[in-house]
């Protein structure tokens, strides 16, 4: 960490203002970032600062910039998105859609029921997603609105019924996603979907 202008914090082991800015803007070298992360993992004061500054930056009026995209380009992108990402309920996705991908960018599967953002009735809702080829195992995860996992289950089926011990509270938003792992090691995911309770 640089030893330059540490504005108010007397303890010289804290991150400097320059360090905090470089960390948030991702302008550190790999070694600097690792050192900063090592420090942040053990220093509540500096973690509070980077969190507070990130919140300030996200909320500041000057930081909001609306990207200008030509209308034609935006329409073409939207059409391409629809053509390549939407799968019809009940149909298998083409095998080319299921590709070997790193953990950070799984291929997409479609969800069927409930539709994203739908309100589900009380009881034990059934959640359904599209199948993929390759003898996959599906891992289902349900989280609350804060992202806290509430229930996970593995299955080879393309639907799951929430068990009675998973109690959905009224007027809440829940998130769910399904990760698929094929026998050949390739992966796919539905991405995060949400539903609400009445």
């Amino acid at each position, binding site marked *: 960490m640089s030893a330059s202008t540490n504005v108010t914090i007397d303890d010289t082991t804290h991150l400097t203002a320059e360090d*905090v*800015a470089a960390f948030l803007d991702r302008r550190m070298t790999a070694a600097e970032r690792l050192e900063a992360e090592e420090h942040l993992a053990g220093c509540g004061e500096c973690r509070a600062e980077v969190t507070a500054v990130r919140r300030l930056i996200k909320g500041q009026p000057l930081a909001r910039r609306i990207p200008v995209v030509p209308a034609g380009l935006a329409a073409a992108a939207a059409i391409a998105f629809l053509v390549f990402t939407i799968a019809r309920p009940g149909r298998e996705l083409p095998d080319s859609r299921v590709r070997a991908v790193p953990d950070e960018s799984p291929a997409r599967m479609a969800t069927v029921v409930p539709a994203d953002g739908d309100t589900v009735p009380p009881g034990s809702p059934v959640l359904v997603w599209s199948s993929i080829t390759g003898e996959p195992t599906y891992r289902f*995860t349900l989280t609350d609105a804060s992202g806290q996992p509430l229930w996970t289950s593995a299955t080879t089926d393309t639907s799951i019924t929430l068990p009675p011990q998973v109690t959905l509270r009224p007027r809440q938003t829940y998130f769910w996603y399904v990760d698929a792992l094929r026998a050949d090691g390739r992966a796919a995911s539905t991405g995060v979907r949400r539903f609400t309770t009445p």
Partner: protein
Amino acid sequence: MEPAVPEVLERLLVAADESARDEAWRRFVDQYSRLVLYVARRHAPDYDASMDAYAFVLEKLREHECRRLRGYAADGRGKFTTWLVVVSRRLCLDFHRHRYGRAPAEATDTVDDNRAARRRLVDLTTTSVDAALASPSSDDPDGNVRRVELERALESAMTGLPAPDRLLLTLRFHDGLSGAEIASLLHFASPFHVYRRLNQLLAALRERLVRLGVRSPMP
């Protein structure tokens, strides 16, 4: 890495005489007042206090021939506006401490929330290891003692993790940040990626706890 020092700041720092410095300072204030004022308003209880804090920040930025601004220019890694938010916030906290003898509420920790988040981490890492440890009942007098022992084991297990993973767990389960905030802070592609990584880490921690001998509720 692209140069981050804005032109208006460069002109201020190279101004040769008093009148040039005054003119450059006026332009600097014109350009960045809104940002400094925004930070000041977030750290002051009322309008007057925020204007006082704003004036304090500008005074401190200009003192000693703009020592702080020169410090940024010499480093120049982060964006200037990010750096200015960091420094303005620190100065506003200083101002608040000097005036009121304590930091404003924004800077204080929510201890109860942190404890709750910390307890969630213990629960999540021990569910499959030892359900009794994770949720001791009130009629189990040894429950709290075992929980303390478990937390020590958890600390030990976390110590062996790489710094980015420890930071991720700490932000989520100690500081109670949402996945969206963590994704923004640590540059994950989405909250989804944060939760996936957290699930992987929790599984790894469970394995480490088992290796540390946390298998049974009985010592």
